């Protein structure tokens, strides 16, 4: 009883000791913040990775090769039908995309990963459709250009796109083609570089300047250089008048582009985060990819952007482009001429909730042995293993470092406690003269350490949780005060710092901190317990 009372009274009367545990408090708070942010990040990453990659992917080693996907899917169904929720076949090949930048009018060529998908089943295996910008496409993608309305519910200030854009664009090009000689005398600066402002509600001025690497030349207005092949109007030359493609009412095969292929994220003059689009739904692009020939030849075709894909994973957003599977199979010659059997390059599975990923993968690996089929069968975790492991490692190392900080705090507690024991020497003598056993004296100081640790880590816990709760507000303040970007959405593709508070982690952090405080008070407490009562009583 007296132990509790005295520990409590010492705690109340020795605020200086509280100072010694400020480091415990800070350590606990930082640990909680760091863990929450790291957990938030990795959870967000898991979600996105998992959303983009289906549960299990069967990939042929050969680009041309997994013939007769229907047969494979039947086999898989027989093997693990109970666990499978959805299945789709797709082609994934490297490709080049080529389109005209509607800011500068220059041609942009980029490497991409071209994915041929069966739009009926593809969204069943991943969150693919959720990442599309047009609300109708999010319901069901059909590779057809929509009137407008892109970005509704996802992005405000999204530029005019779709048919609305395409018609204006076509008309503008038409004018440019019809009167090439008229424009020759006109100063280049008078020709608008594009019929559209990049962002529907903000000025064009200054935007070009903020985009790194793009100088302010405006000479490349579409149509002003007659020798360039104008996309979207490939057959306009009088040599082939019989095929008339009217870009204002017709589209090429649809393509869904990863948003970073045709946009960059930067800041406008006011420092607001802003996306700049080089191409938008409604524009035409050219895609070049290898066919199945020996050796492969490059095949090109025109596509019309029907939507953009934003998963917020820059790796995917900057490389994925989706086209209809059948079209890609045709273009690449993946249809066997005699049998009519078509090939794909991957089969993707989505498993039912709670199904064992690895077990299904192992079953499939046993059914399609690598020696015989040469397929790579992986779960999404396998595919992103190194990334997930890196994040995990980072978290572990940070935790160790921060715990070292708390351990350092432990030494502070040790020193403070030794002082307090010296200061309380006479009290120890008094207690012993009243018959308190050494163990009782020791537990007073251990209890003192325990209560300090509890208070310190409790306050740390509260601070940490408050910080986590308001982390985005705090980041905003810090930005205002220091002018330094704390969390740059242009880098991370999240607009907010994601956080997840794991109660178990909090509990462990608090327990660890309390344990350190108690351990640090053991030595001083032993010293107090060993004091000789007579000497302690004589102590002045």
């Amino acid at each position, binding site marked *: *009883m*007296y132990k*509790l*009372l*005295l520990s409590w*009274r*010492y705690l*109340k*009367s020795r605020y200086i000791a509280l100072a010694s545990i400020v480091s415990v408090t800070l350590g606990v708070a930082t640990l909680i913040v760091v863990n929450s942010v790291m957990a938030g990040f990795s959870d967000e990453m898991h979600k996105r990775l998992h959303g983009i990659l289906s549960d299990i992917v069967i990939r042929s080693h050969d680009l041309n090769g997994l013939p007769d996907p229907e047969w494979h899917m039947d086999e898989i169904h027989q093997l693990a039908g109970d666990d499978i929720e959805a299945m789709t076949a797709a082609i994934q090949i490297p490709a080049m995309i080529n389109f005209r930048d509607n800011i500068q009018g220059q041609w942009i060529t980029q490497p991409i990963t071209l994915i041929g998908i069966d739009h009926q089943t593809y969204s069943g295996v991943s969150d693919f459709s959720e990442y599309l910008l047009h609300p109708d496409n999010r319901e069901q993608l059909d590779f057809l250009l929509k009137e407008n309305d892109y970005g509704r519910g996802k992005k405000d200030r999204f530029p005019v796109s779709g048919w609305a854009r395409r018609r204006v664009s076509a008309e503008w090009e038409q004018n440019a083609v019809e009167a090439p000689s008229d424009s020759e005398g006109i100063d280049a600066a008078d020709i608008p570089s594009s019929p559209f402002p990049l962002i529907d509600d903000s000025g064009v001025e200054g935007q070009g300047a903020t985009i790194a690497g793009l100088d302010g030349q405006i000479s490349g207005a579409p149509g002003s250089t007659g020798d360039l092949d104008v996309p979207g109007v490939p057959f306009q030359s009088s040599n082939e008048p019989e095929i008339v493609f009217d870009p204002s009412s017709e589209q090429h095969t649809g393509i869904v582009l990863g948003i970073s292929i045709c946009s960059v994220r930067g800041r406008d003059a006011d420092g607001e985060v802003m996306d700049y689009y080089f191409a938008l739904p409604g524009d035409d692009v050219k895609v070049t990819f290898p066919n199945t020939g020996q050796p492969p030849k490059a095949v090109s075709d025109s596509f019309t952007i029907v939507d953009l894909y934003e998963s917020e994973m820059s790796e995917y957003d900057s490389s994925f482009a989706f086209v209809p599977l059948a079209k890609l199979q045709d273009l690449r010659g993946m249809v066997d001429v005699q049998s009519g059997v078509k090939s794909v390059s991957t089969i993707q599975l989505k498993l039912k909730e709670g199904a064992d990923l690895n077990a299904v993968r192992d079953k499939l690996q046993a059914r399609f042995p690598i020696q015989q089929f040469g397929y790579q069968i992986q779960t999404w975790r396998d595919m992103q293993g190194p990334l997930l492991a890196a994040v995990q490692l980072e978290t572990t190392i940070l935790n160790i470092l921060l715990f070292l900080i708390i351990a350092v705090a432990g030494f502070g507690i040790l020193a403070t406690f030794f002082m307090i024991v010296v200061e309380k020497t*006479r*009290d120890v*003598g*008094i*207690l*012993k*003269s*009243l*018959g*308190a*056993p*050494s163990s*009782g004296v020791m537990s007073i100081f251990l209890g003192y350490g325990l209560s300090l640790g509890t208070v310190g880590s409790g306050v740390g816990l509260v601070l940490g949780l408050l910080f986590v709760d308001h982390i985005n507000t705090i980041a905003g303040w810090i930005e205002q005060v220091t002018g330094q970007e704390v969390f740059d959405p242009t880098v991370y593709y999240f607009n907010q710092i994601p956080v997840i508070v794991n109660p178990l982690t909090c509990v462990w952090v608090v327990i660890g901190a309390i344990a350190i405080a108690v351990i640090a008070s053991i030595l001083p407490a032993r010293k107090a317990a060993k004091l*000789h*009562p*007579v000497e302690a*009583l004589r102590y002045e």
Partner: protein
Amino acid sequence: MSSAYELAIEHQAVSSTDQKNQLHPRLLKSPVVLKATGVTKSYRKGKVEVPVLNGVDIEVLEGEFQAIVGASGSGKSTFLHLLATLDKPDDGEIYFEDNRIDNLPAASRDILRNRYIGMIFQFYHLLPELTALENVLMPVMIHHGFMSYMLQRRKFRKRAKELLDLVGLSHRLKHRPREMSGGEMQRVAIARSLMANPRLLLADEPTGNLDRAAGEEIMEIIHELNSAYDVTIVMVTHDLSIAAQADRTVRLAEGRVESVSFQS
């Protein structure tokens, strides 16, 4: 009685029967509460051994008020600490109610100090963080575990208040030691020493730090304890007028009992 004790008596040239006869008549039938025989104690200062006590014998009867006097540095406090089992003698034996206590294990000595022997000191030795009431409750808090204390705490608090009332401090229950005068602190210390209802009260110059008036108040309380409540008291003092009020006064000099005198 041991031979050592007899030796000491011889040295004083007073026979045992004479001693008894000279004690207050009310004590004649009293049993011995505390007895020390041939107690020696020396402190080691580096290589030099400083002898403090060289064979001290005393005997305290139940209900007796015994004073120990002696020059400063004669080892009075040291001796009292030995009687209270706060320290162990180098040699000699100490008996409390016929049980040898100087060589008891630590746990038993703790219990002895906690429940059987009360102590008061020159510098009061109250715990500064606790109120008067809590200081008085300290012995029972040490005695009882949390649950046991909580269950009986009404009873304990009532007793503690009664004791503080006895020493005239019922209006200071919630005061901290630094908010009280020396006399008040000493009265709290007395109340604390009585909390466990001890059979023996050891006092080390309880008035040494007080002015005459406060000292007299303390002595009045101690006398009342002795006469009205029959508490056996062994008190170290400098003040010969206080010693004169004792049933028996033991004078220590050069680590021995120099003389024993009785109240006239």
